[in-house]
């Protein structure tokens, strides 16, 4: 009986120890981290924080995608379609499937490498001179194309974007991505009046405060996402307040002030000219008596 109790005690202690011994991430001391500008890219292996930080691996959220291709041509077609529609998981799966089926995927090799790098490296949106030199040696015209997109950071390092690189490489295999780039777009829809926006934000804050636990995830973020994506229905159906006629704080405020001032001056001048009698209409001067 005593042995049984002792065994149970040991097992209980071990279980307690196992529960309490969660694998904790490595914590870096402040003195270990070199000072760095957080807006500059860091290499994957060294993360420079100004404060003690918990360093965790970031895994991409990519669900396994199955490609239903029975022959190489079908797999290549799906790969091209995924490339055109900016679908990384499907492209990756179709690329592997096409290679398995014996298709010649050498033309897509660099695309796959660039995209894979973009999806696995913490700074994957940009790459350095090493990959640039390799691509420049393999693809004529690439160096000239990417030159206009290069970025120089505060330390003088040069970075090139993977997004534009992928676009160039896709053009080499005659695939035009469906996403058209536009640097400056005109606003097509009328922005909400300022007071309306303020009201909606205020309501969202209060709703987040008073929100009940969400059915899917009991997290304030989920509530905030709901509030952000779906503004209250009452706000849509409610009669809209009249729009603000003049917004002096907006970019057009200065022009509006100028317009009002000029209009007042113009109206004043017109009134002056209309009411002032001409020389021929004026009364003749009378000699002072």
């Amino acid at each position, binding site marked *: 009986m005593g042995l049984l109790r002792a065994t149970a005690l040991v097992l209980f202690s071990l279980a307690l120890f196992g529960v309490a011994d969660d694998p904790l991430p490595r914590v870096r001391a402040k003195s270990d981290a070199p000072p760095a500008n*957080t807006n500059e890219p860091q290499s994957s292996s060294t993360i420079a924080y100004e404060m003690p930080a918990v360093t965790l691996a970031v895994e991409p*959220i990519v669900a396994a995608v199955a490609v239903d291709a029975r022959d190489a041509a079908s797999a290549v077609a799906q790969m091209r379609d995924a490339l055109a529609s900016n679908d990384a998981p499907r492209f990756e799966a179709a690329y592997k499937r096409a290679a398995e089926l014996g298709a010649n995927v050498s033309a897509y090799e660099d695309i796959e490498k660039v995209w894979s790098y*973009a999806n696995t490296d913490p700074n994957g*949106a940009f790459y350095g001179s090493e990959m640039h030199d390799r691509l420049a040696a393999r693809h004529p015209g690439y160096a000239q194309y990417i030159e206009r997109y290069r970025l120089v950071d505060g330390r003088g390092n040069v970075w090139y974007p993977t997004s534009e690189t992928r676009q160039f490489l896709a053009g080499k295999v005659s695939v035009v991505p469906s996403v058209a780039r536009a640097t400056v777009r005109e606003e097509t829809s009328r922005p909400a009046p300022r007071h309306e926006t303020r009201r909606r934000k205020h309501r969202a804050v209060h709703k987040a405060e008073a929100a009940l636990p969400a059915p899917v995830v009991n997290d304030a973020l989920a509530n905030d996402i709901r509030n952000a*994506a779906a503004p209250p229905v009452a706000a849509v159906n409610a009669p809209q307040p009249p729009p603000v006629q003049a917004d002096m704080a907006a970019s057009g405020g200065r022009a*509006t002030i100028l317009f009002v001032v000029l209009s007042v001056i113009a109206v004043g001048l017109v009134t002056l000219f209309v009411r002032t009698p001409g020389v021929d209409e004026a009364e003749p001067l009378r000699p002072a008596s």
Partner: protein
Amino acid sequence: MRKLVGLALLLFSFAAYAADKATAPEITPPANGEDWLKLSSTEKLFWSIGYAQGYADALGKIDVAAGPSSPCTALATRTERQTSTFGKVSGFEVVSGLEKFYSDPANAQIPVGSAIRIYLLQASGKDQTTIQELIETARLLGAEASRRPQK
């Protein structure tokens, strides 16, 4: 003659106003993944740096403007805790995270603000199940929002 001069002045003021309005630049910030993918990488980077700075400033202002025990402060603290990674990731990393997030077309309708917060939660080590549930919720609501007519 004087009336004509007055009318000319009036017309001139109208013309000046119209010309000034037509040449005023106007850029719309990205609302969701579709908008995000239309930007160049340089635009994405500068937008991310500005967003991060504005986010931090906004949190600070909420804290300053409201009393220490007000609901606003509690909300700000909670939000800051959830997105405390923002001060520690670089603008390059934010762009990379969003590029990765929007490389799945199913996420295209998710608002950029929600995508950033999901990315930051992911980067701070939030469990994958919760992240996936948030993504699924954001996808549904983003799709609903895109179907709703723009006001």
